[in-house]
């Protein structure tokens, strides 16, 4: 349904995305994962056909974004990072307007609006002005406008941004309910949400696609990735920085709790003996050192090492 081949986009001298290639099948829910500024929104804008790539090509439903954007516009529903709402309109009037804008047949407008209002739980605010809605409801209206014409492809840019925990769960349920009927591409910098919602993850970092696959396959490709838990009676100054310099260590996290300090090390090499020696040399008590497989978070942190670290190999 979606094909990207060597997509690149530059703004002036800045390369926002660099030779990104991937394929997304019909009915899949795929997440673009990356830190802020990684290039996720740029990729989504290109797929939405309202930003042209500087190089490479993108096809949505078989249509090229630079040759046939009008055809793509008929296929997609798009929710940008800020929902495109007119504050002076009511929810009902806005959705009717968008439905007509998106070629919903005159006789079907009311039916489609009722359907998306129900699907996104907007019934009790349907006569409210958009300007009076909370952030969560505005986001829901944003999703509703992306669904109102029953598009084959739905593109959601940071759909859970700014939502509270209850709203996040509702949004997650809504997105997963689209599985099979629509192809969904969404972006987020929140790893847990991507893994709970999506069939597949594309990890983007500094404009490049650094990994893709399911949570399980990503972890499998990084088999060496493990997490060491180091328990200490106290934390000496400079130990975290020293541990971070050990070969293979991607990230060191400090967890303060009752009865001592805990350090979590995400690493692709078994550095337990070096860790033990370093800790003992500082003179603090080593209460425990254990190894477990790292979660996807560890894989993610490893994939998106700081640019300068990558530059030094």
């Amino acid at each position, binding site marked *: 349904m979606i094909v990207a081949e060597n997509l690149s986009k530059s703004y002036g001298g800045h390369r926002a995305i660099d030779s990104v290639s991937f394929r997304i099948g019909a009915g899949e829910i795929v997440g673009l994962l990356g830190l802020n500024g990684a290039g996720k929104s*740029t990729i989504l804008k290109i797929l939405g*056909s309202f930003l042209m790539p500087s190089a490479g090509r993108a096809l949505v439903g078989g249509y090229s974004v630079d040759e046939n954007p009008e055809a793509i*516009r008929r296929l997609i*529903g798009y929710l*940008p990072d800020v929902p495109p709402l*007119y504050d002076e*309109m009511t929810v009902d009037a806005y959705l009717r307007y*968008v439905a007509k*804008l998106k070629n919903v047949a005159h006789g079907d407008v009311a039916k489609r609006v009722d359907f998306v209002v129900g699907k996104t739980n907007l019934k009790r605010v349907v006569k409210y002005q958009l300007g009076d809605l909370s952030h969560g409801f505005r986001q829901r209206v944003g999703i509703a406008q992306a669904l109102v014409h029953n598009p084959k492809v739905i593109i959601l840019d940071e759909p859970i941004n700014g939502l509270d925990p209850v709203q996040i769960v509702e949004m997650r349920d809504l997105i997963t309910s689209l599985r099979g009927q629509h192809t969904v591409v969404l972006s987020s910098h929140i790893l847990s949400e991507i893994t709970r919602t999506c069939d597949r993850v594309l990890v983007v970092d500094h404009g490049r696609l650094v990994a893709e696959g399911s949570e399980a396959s990503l972890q499998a490709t990084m088999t060496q990735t493990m997490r060491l838990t180091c328990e200490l009676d106290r934390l000496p100054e400079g130990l975290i920085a020293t541990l971070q310099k050990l070969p293979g260590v991607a990230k060191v996290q400090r967890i303060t709790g009752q009865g001592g300090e805990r350090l979590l090390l995400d690493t692709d090499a078994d550095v337990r003996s070096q860790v033990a020696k370093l800790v003992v040399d500082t003179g603090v008590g080593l209460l425990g050192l254990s190894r477990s497989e790292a979660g996807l978070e560890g894989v993610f942190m490893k994939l998106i090492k700081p640019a300068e670290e990558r530059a030094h190999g």
Partner: protein
Amino acid sequence: MAKVLLVARRELRAFFSTWMGYIIAAAALFIEGLLFNAYAVGSSPKLSAEVLSDYFYFASGIAMVAGIFLAMRLIAEEKQNGTLVLFYTSPISERQLIYGKFLSVFAFLVVIQALSLYLPALIFINGKISFGHLASGYLALILIGAAAAAISLFASAISPNQLVAGVTGTLFLVTFLVLWMVADIVEAPFKEIFGYLAIHNRHFPPFSQGIVHTRDLVYYGSVIVFFLECSVRVLEARRWRG
């Protein structure tokens, strides 16, 4: 055409659902009423046709200012609020969007002019004017207001916000207004070119005296289409710039 009308209807409703439309209409009508009594009717005796011509002369300035104010928000506000993306991801062309937006301002300008009809109608109390004179004057007011709106719409398309759009649009309009002065100080062929391009000096007065020239209709039509098409190009180019 259905999409053009859809966009125009939404914009028109937006004018009436916010204070913007009411304020601009009320201000235009208030100032027109004031100037009609103070200057067009005045205190010295005049022919009815002169009163009407004078009324059209200053009403043209108000029509231009209204055109600028009404159109300056049309695209700039969409950019500010992030709603432009709705059109970029919907099956509507940039041309349909621009012409729909322009149509809404055009319709609003017609409403303002229609509401001001009572002013020249007052002339009938003590005088006599021809309906042809009245029609040609109002046609000119609508055309010059629409031309100013098209210029302002273009400014709105190239500006990041309404304020900049208003200032830019005013600058463009003033440039077109004073081109006749430039024409006075340059040699041919620029003299003729600048003189022709001036938005008011040569093209408006015949209308205000009840004379409709095809060349003046073509001029205002050309200015409108030129700036609308420039606005379309600006929006199309945004897809490449990002």
